[in-house]
Protein backbone atom coordinates (compact mmCIF):
# COMPACT_ATOMS: atom_id res chain seq x y z
CA UNK A 1 0.00 0.00 0.00
CA UNK A 2 1.39 3.43 -0.88
CA UNK A 3 1.69 5.98 1.90
CA UNK A 4 -1.37 8.21 2.00
CA UNK A 5 -1.19 11.94 1.82
CA UNK A 6 -3.88 14.54 2.26
CA UNK A 7 -4.39 16.86 -0.68
CA UNK A 8 -3.72 20.55 -0.17
CA UNK A 9 -6.87 22.66 0.27
CA UNK A 10 -7.53 24.15 -3.18
CA UNK A 11 -7.26 27.90 -3.74
CA UNK A 12 -10.16 30.19 -4.67
CA UNK A 13 -9.97 33.79 -5.77
CA UNK A 14 -9.65 36.38 -3.02
CA UNK A 15 -12.46 38.26 -4.78
CA UNK A 16 -13.19 41.98 -4.94
CA UNK A 17 -13.82 42.32 -1.21
CA UNK A 18 -10.48 40.93 -0.03
CA UNK A 19 -9.88 44.19 1.83
CA UNK A 20 -12.57 43.44 4.41
CA UNK A 21 -10.58 40.61 5.92
CA UNK A 22 -7.06 41.81 5.23
CA UNK A 23 -6.97 45.62 5.38
CA UNK A 24 -10.43 46.59 6.65
CA UNK A 25 -9.72 50.33 6.84
CA UNK A 26 -9.10 50.37 3.08
CA UNK A 27 -12.78 49.69 2.33
CA UNK A 28 -14.33 51.85 5.01
CA UNK A 29 -14.51 49.46 7.97
CA UNK A 30 -13.62 51.04 11.29
CA UNK A 31 -11.57 48.13 12.63
CA UNK A 32 -7.80 47.63 13.18
CA UNK A 33 -7.26 51.27 12.37
CA UNK A 34 -3.77 51.34 13.85
CA UNK A 35 -2.29 48.73 11.54
CA UNK A 36 -0.05 50.26 8.89
CA UNK A 37 1.01 47.19 7.01
CA UNK A 38 2.43 48.99 3.96
CA UNK A 39 5.02 50.76 6.06
CA UNK A 40 7.72 48.54 7.52
CA UNK A 41 9.75 49.74 10.43
CA UNK A 42 13.21 48.11 10.42
CA UNK A 43 16.82 49.31 10.52
CA UNK A 44 18.50 49.95 7.19
CA UNK A 45 18.37 52.25 4.19
CA UNK A 46 14.79 53.38 3.52
CA UNK A 47 13.19 52.73 0.16
CA UNK A 48 9.78 53.40 -1.37
CA UNK A 49 8.34 51.14 -4.05
CA UNK A 50 5.48 52.46 -6.12
CA UNK A 51 3.74 49.52 -7.77
CA UNK A 52 1.03 48.95 -10.33
CA UNK A 53 -0.62 45.76 -11.56
CA UNK A 54 -1.92 45.80 -15.14
CA UNK A 55 -4.28 43.29 -16.74
CA UNK A 56 -3.98 41.85 -20.25
CA UNK A 57 -5.58 44.94 -21.79
CA UNK A 58 -3.17 47.27 -19.99
CA UNK A 59 -5.82 48.48 -17.53
CA UNK A 60 -4.82 48.88 -13.87
CA UNK A 61 -6.07 46.21 -11.48
CA UNK A 62 -7.74 48.46 -8.91
CA UNK A 63 -8.90 45.79 -6.51
CA UNK A 64 -5.61 43.96 -5.92
CA UNK A 65 -4.10 43.22 -2.53
CA UNK A 66 -0.35 42.76 -2.61
CA UNK A 67 1.82 41.11 0.01
CA UNK A 68 5.53 41.62 0.54
CA UNK A 69 8.04 39.25 2.08
CA UNK A 70 11.70 40.20 2.08
CA UNK A 71 15.04 39.84 3.81
CA UNK A 72 16.10 42.54 6.24
CA UNK A 73 18.94 44.94 5.40
CA UNK A 74 21.45 42.29 6.48
CA UNK A 75 19.96 39.67 4.18
CA UNK A 76 18.32 37.65 6.91
CA UNK A 77 14.91 36.00 6.56
CA UNK A 78 13.19 33.64 9.00
CA UNK A 79 12.38 35.59 12.13
CA UNK A 80 14.22 38.62 10.74
CA UNK A 81 12.21 38.57 7.53
CA UNK A 82 9.99 41.58 6.84
CA UNK A 83 6.36 41.26 5.85
CA UNK A 84 3.90 43.82 4.58
CA UNK A 85 0.64 44.26 2.77
CA UNK A 86 -0.58 47.00 0.43
CA UNK A 87 -3.81 47.74 -1.36
CA UNK A 88 -4.11 49.04 -4.91
CA UNK A 89 -5.73 52.47 -4.99
CA UNK A 90 -9.42 52.09 -5.93
CA UNK A 91 -9.09 54.97 -8.44
CA UNK A 92 -5.77 54.42 -10.20
CA UNK A 93 -4.49 51.04 -9.01
CA UNK A 94 -1.20 52.30 -7.60
CA UNK A 95 0.18 50.83 -4.38
CA UNK A 96 3.18 51.72 -2.22
CA UNK A 97 5.53 49.93 0.14
CA UNK A 98 7.72 51.93 2.48
CA UNK A 99 10.43 49.56 3.64
CA UNK A 100 14.19 48.99 3.84
CA UNK A 101 16.45 47.85 1.07
CA UNK A 102 16.97 44.10 1.53
CA UNK A 103 20.49 42.69 1.75
CA UNK A 104 22.02 39.91 -0.32
CA UNK A 105 20.36 36.63 0.72
CA UNK A 106 21.64 33.10 0.96
CA UNK A 107 20.33 30.49 -1.45
CA UNK A 108 20.79 26.75 -1.43
CA UNK A 109 24.15 25.02 -1.26
CA UNK A 110 26.03 28.13 -0.15
CA UNK A 111 25.04 30.21 -3.17
CA UNK A 112 23.78 33.79 -2.85
CA UNK A 113 20.83 35.70 -4.30
CA UNK A 114 20.75 39.30 -5.42
CA UNK A 115 18.73 41.61 -3.14
CA UNK A 116 15.05 41.40 -4.00
CA UNK A 117 11.52 41.64 -2.68
CA UNK A 118 8.99 38.84 -3.06
CA UNK A 119 5.48 39.99 -3.93
CA UNK A 120 2.30 37.95 -4.05
CA UNK A 121 -0.78 39.25 -5.82
CA UNK A 122 -4.34 38.51 -4.76
CA UNK A 123 -7.35 39.86 -6.65
CA UNK A 124 -10.71 39.12 -8.21
CA UNK A 125 -10.11 36.98 -11.30
CA UNK A 126 -6.86 35.56 -9.92
CA UNK A 127 -7.72 31.99 -8.96
CA UNK A 128 -4.48 31.31 -7.11
CA UNK A 129 -2.16 34.04 -5.92
CA UNK A 130 0.72 34.98 -8.19
CA UNK A 131 4.26 34.93 -6.87
CA UNK A 132 6.83 37.30 -8.33
CA UNK A 133 10.01 39.18 -7.38
CA UNK A 134 11.32 42.72 -7.61
CA UNK A 135 15.06 43.34 -8.06
CA UNK A 136 16.88 46.67 -8.04
CA UNK A 137 18.52 48.23 -11.10
CA UNK A 138 21.77 48.99 -9.21
CA UNK A 139 22.57 45.31 -8.56
CA UNK A 140 23.38 44.10 -12.09
CA UNK A 141 26.53 42.24 -11.01
CA UNK A 142 24.75 40.23 -8.29
CA UNK A 143 21.83 39.63 -10.64
CA UNK A 144 24.13 37.98 -13.21
CA UNK A 145 24.70 35.25 -10.59
CA UNK A 146 21.18 35.13 -9.21
CA UNK A 147 19.68 31.61 -9.29
CA UNK A 148 16.09 32.74 -9.90
CA UNK A 149 16.92 35.17 -12.70
CA UNK A 150 19.18 32.58 -14.30
CA UNK A 151 16.34 30.08 -14.28
CA UNK A 152 14.46 32.31 -16.74
CA UNK A 153 15.53 31.01 -20.10
CA UNK A 154 14.30 34.02 -22.09
CA UNK A 155 16.85 36.66 -21.10
CA UNK A 156 14.51 39.44 -22.21
CA UNK A 157 11.88 38.36 -19.67
CA UNK A 158 14.31 38.80 -16.75
CA UNK A 159 13.88 42.54 -17.18
CA UNK A 160 10.25 42.26 -16.08
CA UNK A 161 11.54 41.71 -12.53
CA UNK A 162 13.81 44.78 -12.35
CA UNK A 163 12.29 47.92 -10.84
CA UNK A 164 12.76 51.34 -12.42
CA UNK A 165 14.76 53.81 -10.35
CA UNK A 166 13.01 57.14 -9.83
CA UNK A 167 15.50 58.70 -7.44
CA UNK A 168 17.44 57.95 -4.28
CA UNK A 169 15.69 55.01 -2.65
CA UNK A 170 12.66 55.49 -4.89
CA UNK A 171 11.50 52.88 -7.34
CA UNK A 172 8.59 52.15 -9.60
CA UNK A 173 7.59 48.66 -10.64
CA UNK A 174 4.87 47.57 -13.04
CA UNK A 175 3.52 44.01 -12.91
CA UNK A 176 1.89 42.88 -16.15
CA UNK A 177 -0.39 39.90 -15.63
CA UNK A 178 -0.57 39.03 -19.30
CA UNK A 179 0.49 39.87 -22.82
CA UNK A 180 3.42 41.77 -24.16
CA UNK A 181 6.15 42.02 -21.51
CA UNK A 182 4.21 39.71 -19.18
CA UNK A 183 5.87 39.65 -15.75
CA UNK A 184 7.63 36.46 -14.70
CA UNK A 185 5.71 34.50 -12.05
CA UNK A 186 7.23 31.64 -10.11
CA UNK A 187 6.13 28.26 -8.88
CA UNK A 188 8.20 27.51 -5.80
Amino acid at each position, binding site marked *: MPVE*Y*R*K*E*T*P*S*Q*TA*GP*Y*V*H*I*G*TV*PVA*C*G*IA*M*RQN*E*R*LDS*IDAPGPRIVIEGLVL*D*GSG*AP*VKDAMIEL*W*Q*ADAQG*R*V*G*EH*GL*WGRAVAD*FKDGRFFFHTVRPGT*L*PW*RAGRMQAPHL*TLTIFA*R*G*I*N*IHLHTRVYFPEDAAAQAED*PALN*RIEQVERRKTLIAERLGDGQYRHVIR*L*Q*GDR*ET*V*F*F*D*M
Partner: protein
Amino acid sequence: MNAKIQPGENQPGRTAWQGDFVRRDRAWHPPAYTPGYKTSVLRSPNCALISLEQGPAEKTGPRFARSMLHEFDNDLTINYARATGSGGEAIGERIIVHGRVTDEYGRPVPETLIEVWQANAGGRYRHVKDGYMAPLDPNFGGCGRVITDAEGRYFFRTIKPGAYPWPNNGSDWRPAHIHFSIFGEAFAQRLVSQLYFEGDPLIPLCPIVNTIPDKRAIDSLVARLDMGEMRPFDCLAYRLDIVLRGRQQTFFENLTEGM
Protein backbone atom coordinates in the same frame (compact mmCIF):
# COMPACT_ATOMS: atom_id res chain seq x y z
CA MET B 1 0.83 54.80 16.82
CA ASN B 2 1.95 51.97 14.60
CA ALA B 3 0.51 48.77 15.99
CA LYS B 4 2.48 46.89 13.42
CA ILE B 5 2.38 43.14 13.24
CA GLN B 6 5.79 41.85 14.23
CA PRO B 7 6.97 38.85 12.26
CA GLY B 8 9.04 36.54 14.37
CA GLU B 9 7.55 37.38 17.76
CA ASN B 10 7.16 34.50 20.17
CA GLN B 11 8.87 32.04 17.92
CA PRO B 12 11.87 30.64 19.75
CA GLY B 13 13.39 27.46 18.39
CA ARG B 14 11.69 27.55 15.00
CA THR B 15 12.71 24.79 12.70
CA ALA B 16 13.05 27.05 9.73
CA TRP B 17 15.71 25.12 7.88
CA GLN B 18 14.11 21.79 7.50
CA GLY B 19 13.11 20.14 4.29
CA ASP B 20 11.41 21.54 1.24
CA PHE B 21 7.67 21.78 0.86
CA VAL B 22 5.96 19.32 -1.44
CA ARG B 23 5.33 20.84 -4.85
CA ARG B 24 1.88 22.29 -5.43
CA ASP B 25 -0.34 20.04 -7.50
CA ARG B 26 -1.36 22.71 -9.97
CA ALA B 27 -3.96 20.38 -11.53
CA TRP B 28 -5.77 20.23 -8.19
CA HIS B 29 -5.91 24.02 -7.83
CA PRO B 30 -7.87 26.09 -10.34
CA PRO B 31 -5.86 27.06 -13.41
CA ALA B 32 -5.28 30.79 -13.98
CA TYR B 33 -7.36 30.92 -17.16
CA THR B 34 -10.97 29.87 -16.52
CA PRO B 35 -13.25 31.53 -19.12
CA GLY B 36 -16.39 30.47 -17.21
CA TYR B 37 -15.25 33.04 -14.65
CA LYS B 38 -14.91 35.98 -16.99
CA THR B 39 -12.66 38.20 -14.90
CA SER B 40 -9.91 35.58 -15.09
CA VAL B 41 -9.62 36.00 -18.86
CA LEU B 42 -7.55 39.21 -18.73
CA ARG B 43 -5.97 38.50 -15.35
CA SER B 44 -4.34 35.15 -16.13
CA PRO B 45 -0.69 34.89 -17.21
CA ASN B 46 -0.16 33.19 -20.59
CA CYS B 47 3.41 32.15 -19.93
CA ALA B 48 4.22 29.08 -17.87
CA LEU B 49 5.21 29.70 -14.27
CA ILE B 50 8.97 29.46 -13.76
CA SER B 51 9.74 26.53 -11.49
CA LEU B 52 12.29 27.27 -8.85
CA GLU B 53 13.65 25.43 -5.84
CA GLN B 54 12.75 26.83 -2.44
CA GLY B 55 15.30 29.05 -0.74
CA PRO B 56 15.37 30.37 2.81
CA ALA B 57 12.77 33.05 2.04
CA GLU B 58 10.25 30.49 0.79
CA LYS B 59 10.88 28.10 3.66
CA THR B 60 10.13 30.74 6.28
CA GLY B 61 7.38 33.29 6.53
CA PRO B 62 5.82 35.95 8.72
CA ARG B 63 4.68 34.84 12.15
CA PHE B 64 1.92 36.57 14.02
CA ALA B 65 1.74 36.82 17.77
CA ARG B 66 -1.42 36.33 19.78
CA SER B 67 -0.74 39.72 21.33
CA MET B 68 -1.88 41.43 18.12
CA LEU B 69 -5.39 39.97 18.37
CA HIS B 70 -8.23 41.97 19.82
CA GLU B 71 -10.57 40.36 22.30
CA PHE B 72 -13.41 39.62 19.89
CA ASP B 73 -11.48 39.12 16.65
CA ASN B 74 -12.92 35.62 16.28
CA ASP B 75 -16.51 36.57 17.10
CA LEU B 76 -18.03 38.27 14.08
CA THR B 77 -21.44 38.44 15.73
CA ILE B 78 -20.17 41.22 18.01
CA ASN B 79 -16.71 42.40 16.96
CA TYR B 80 -17.86 45.17 14.62
CA ALA B 81 -20.40 46.59 17.05
CA ARG B 82 -17.75 46.56 19.80
CA ALA B 83 -15.30 48.41 17.54
CA THR B 84 -17.84 51.08 16.60
CA GLY B 85 -19.22 51.31 20.13
CA SER B 86 -22.82 50.49 19.23
CA GLY B 87 -22.64 47.29 21.27
CA GLY B 88 -25.33 45.39 19.34
CA GLU B 89 -25.27 41.96 17.74
CA ALA B 90 -25.38 40.90 14.10
CA ILE B 91 -28.63 39.64 12.58
CA GLY B 92 -28.66 36.14 11.14
CA GLU B 93 -28.28 32.45 11.82
CA ARG B 94 -25.64 32.08 14.52
CA ILE B 95 -22.95 29.55 13.69
CA ILE B 96 -19.57 28.31 14.91
CA VAL B 97 -17.04 27.46 12.23
CA HIS B 98 -14.15 25.33 13.37
CA GLY B 99 -11.64 22.76 12.23
CA ARG B 100 -8.04 21.77 12.20
CA VAL B 101 -5.16 22.94 10.08
CA THR B 102 -2.65 20.26 9.12
CA ASP B 103 -0.10 19.77 6.39
CA GLU B 104 -0.31 17.10 3.70
CA TYR B 105 1.32 14.59 6.02
CA GLY B 106 -1.34 15.21 8.67
CA ARG B 107 0.94 17.20 10.97
CA PRO B 108 -0.80 20.06 12.80
CA VAL B 109 0.04 23.63 11.82
CA PRO B 110 0.03 25.46 15.16
CA GLU B 111 0.09 29.19 15.87
CA THR B 112 -0.80 30.32 12.39
CA LEU B 113 -3.00 33.27 11.48
CA ILE B 114 -6.34 32.72 9.72
CA GLU B 115 -8.22 35.77 8.48
CA VAL B 116 -11.86 35.58 7.34
CA TRP B 117 -14.27 37.87 5.56
CA GLN B 118 -17.87 37.44 4.48
CA ALA B 119 -21.16 39.04 3.48
CA ASN B 120 -23.91 39.61 6.04
CA ALA B 121 -27.03 37.45 6.40
CA GLY B 122 -28.59 39.24 3.42
CA GLY B 123 -25.60 38.67 1.14
CA ARG B 124 -24.26 42.24 1.35
CA TYR B 125 -20.63 43.11 2.05
CA ARG B 126 -19.60 46.07 4.15
CA HIS B 127 -17.37 47.41 1.38
CA VAL B 128 -17.45 50.70 -0.47
CA LYS B 129 -17.58 48.77 -3.77
CA ASP B 130 -20.56 46.53 -2.93
CA GLY B 131 -23.76 48.04 -4.29
CA TYR B 132 -26.10 45.05 -3.86
CA MET B 133 -29.60 46.15 -2.82
CA ALA B 134 -29.68 43.99 0.34
CA PRO B 135 -29.28 46.21 3.40
CA LEU B 136 -26.18 46.58 5.52
CA ASP B 137 -26.46 45.28 9.06
CA PRO B 138 -25.39 48.10 11.38
CA ASN B 139 -23.90 45.51 13.73
CA PHE B 140 -21.95 43.44 11.22
CA GLY B 141 -18.53 44.15 9.70
CA GLY B 142 -17.75 40.74 8.24
CA CYS B 143 -14.09 40.76 9.27
CA GLY B 144 -12.45 38.32 11.67
CA ARG B 145 -9.24 36.52 12.51
CA VAL B 146 -7.94 33.78 14.72
CA ILE B 147 -4.62 32.04 15.45
CA THR B 148 -4.57 28.24 15.56
CA ASP B 149 -3.75 26.55 18.86
CA ALA B 150 -0.92 24.10 19.55
CA GLU B 151 -2.83 21.30 17.78
CA GLY B 152 -3.67 23.43 14.74
CA ARG B 153 -7.30 23.93 15.79
CA TYR B 154 -9.25 27.09 15.11
CA PHE B 155 -12.78 28.31 15.68
CA PHE B 156 -14.77 31.45 15.21
CA ARG B 157 -18.37 32.49 15.73
CA THR B 158 -20.31 34.33 13.07
CA ILE B 159 -23.63 34.46 11.28
CA LYS B 160 -24.28 32.40 8.18
CA PRO B 161 -23.66 34.64 5.15
CA GLY B 162 -26.37 35.03 2.53
CA ALA B 163 -26.06 34.11 -1.15
CA TYR B 164 -25.58 37.08 -3.47
CA PRO B 165 -25.81 37.86 -7.18
CA TRP B 166 -22.86 39.03 -9.28
CA PRO B 167 -22.51 39.90 -12.93
CA ASN B 168 -20.81 37.13 -14.92
CA ASN B 169 -23.23 35.23 -17.17
CA GLY B 170 -25.92 37.78 -16.52
CA SER B 171 -26.78 37.37 -12.85
CA ASP B 172 -24.85 34.43 -11.43
CA TRP B 173 -25.29 33.64 -7.73
CA ARG B 174 -22.59 32.91 -5.25
CA PRO B 175 -23.40 30.15 -2.77
CA ALA B 176 -23.09 31.19 0.88
CA HIS B 177 -19.37 31.34 1.55
CA ILE B 178 -16.71 32.63 3.91
CA HIS B 179 -13.42 33.80 2.41
CA PHE B 180 -10.33 32.76 4.33
CA SER B 181 -6.63 33.50 4.22
CA ILE B 182 -4.01 31.42 5.98
CA PHE B 183 -0.25 31.85 6.31
CA GLY B 184 1.12 28.52 7.53
CA GLU B 185 4.64 28.30 8.86
CA ALA B 186 6.34 29.39 5.66
CA PHE B 187 5.73 31.57 2.68
CA ALA B 188 5.40 28.49 0.47
CA GLN B 189 2.24 27.48 2.36
CA ARG B 190 0.36 30.74 1.84
CA LEU B 191 -3.23 30.04 0.81
CA VAL B 192 -6.41 32.04 0.20
CA SER B 193 -9.66 30.21 -0.48
CA GLN B 194 -13.37 30.05 0.33
CA LEU B 195 -15.46 27.88 2.64
CA TYR B 196 -18.91 26.66 1.52
CA PHE B 197 -21.75 25.05 3.46
CA GLU B 198 -22.98 21.49 3.19
CA GLY B 199 -26.22 21.09 1.28
CA ASP B 200 -26.16 24.44 -0.55
CA PRO B 201 -27.75 23.87 -3.99
CA LEU B 202 -25.88 26.88 -5.43
CA ILE B 203 -22.44 25.26 -5.03
CA PRO B 204 -22.48 23.21 -8.26
CA LEU B 205 -23.91 26.19 -10.20
CA CYS B 206 -21.18 28.65 -9.25
CA PRO B 207 -18.64 29.62 -11.94
CA ILE B 208 -16.05 30.49 -9.27
CA VAL B 209 -16.46 27.13 -7.51
CA ASN B 210 -16.22 25.49 -10.91
CA THR B 211 -12.82 27.01 -11.65
CA ILE B 212 -11.64 23.99 -9.59
CA PRO B 213 -11.51 21.06 -12.00
CA ASP B 214 -11.81 18.13 -9.58
CA LYS B 215 -15.07 17.46 -7.74
CA ARG B 216 -13.15 16.00 -4.79
CA ALA B 217 -11.19 19.24 -4.47
CA ILE B 218 -14.45 21.22 -4.42
CA ASP B 219 -15.81 18.88 -1.75
CA SER B 220 -12.81 19.65 0.43
CA LEU B 221 -14.01 23.29 0.65
CA VAL B 222 -17.48 22.33 1.88
CA ALA B 223 -17.86 22.66 5.65
CA ARG B 224 -19.93 19.87 7.23
CA LEU B 225 -22.72 20.39 9.71
CA ASP B 226 -21.26 19.28 13.04
CA MET B 227 -24.03 18.60 15.55
CA GLY B 228 -21.40 17.40 18.04
CA GLU B 229 -20.15 20.97 18.40
CA MET B 230 -23.44 22.85 18.17
CA ARG B 231 -24.19 24.95 21.24
CA PRO B 232 -27.66 24.19 22.62
CA PHE B 233 -30.05 27.13 22.31
CA ASP B 234 -27.18 29.22 20.86
CA CYS B 235 -25.65 28.22 17.52
CA LEU B 236 -25.12 25.48 14.97
CA ALA B 237 -21.60 24.35 14.14
CA TYR B 238 -19.84 23.64 10.85
CA ARG B 239 -16.45 22.02 10.48
CA LEU B 240 -13.81 22.54 7.82
CA ASP B 241 -10.34 21.07 8.07
CA ILE B 242 -7.67 22.91 6.11
CA VAL B 243 -4.62 21.24 4.56
CA LEU B 244 -1.47 23.18 3.73
CA ARG B 245 1.52 21.99 1.72
CA GLY B 246 3.54 19.33 3.49
CA ARG B 247 7.12 19.83 4.58
CA GLN B 248 9.40 16.97 3.75
CA GLN B 249 11.88 15.71 6.27
CA THR B 250 15.46 16.80 6.15
CA PHE B 251 17.80 13.93 5.54
CA PHE B 252 21.08 15.25 4.21
CA GLU B 253 20.76 19.00 4.32
CA ASN B 254 23.39 20.95 6.23
CA LEU B 255 21.67 23.34 8.58
CA THR B 256 23.61 26.56 8.47
CA GLU B 257 23.53 28.50 11.70
CA GLY B 258 22.00 31.96 11.44
CA MET B 259 20.90 31.64 7.85
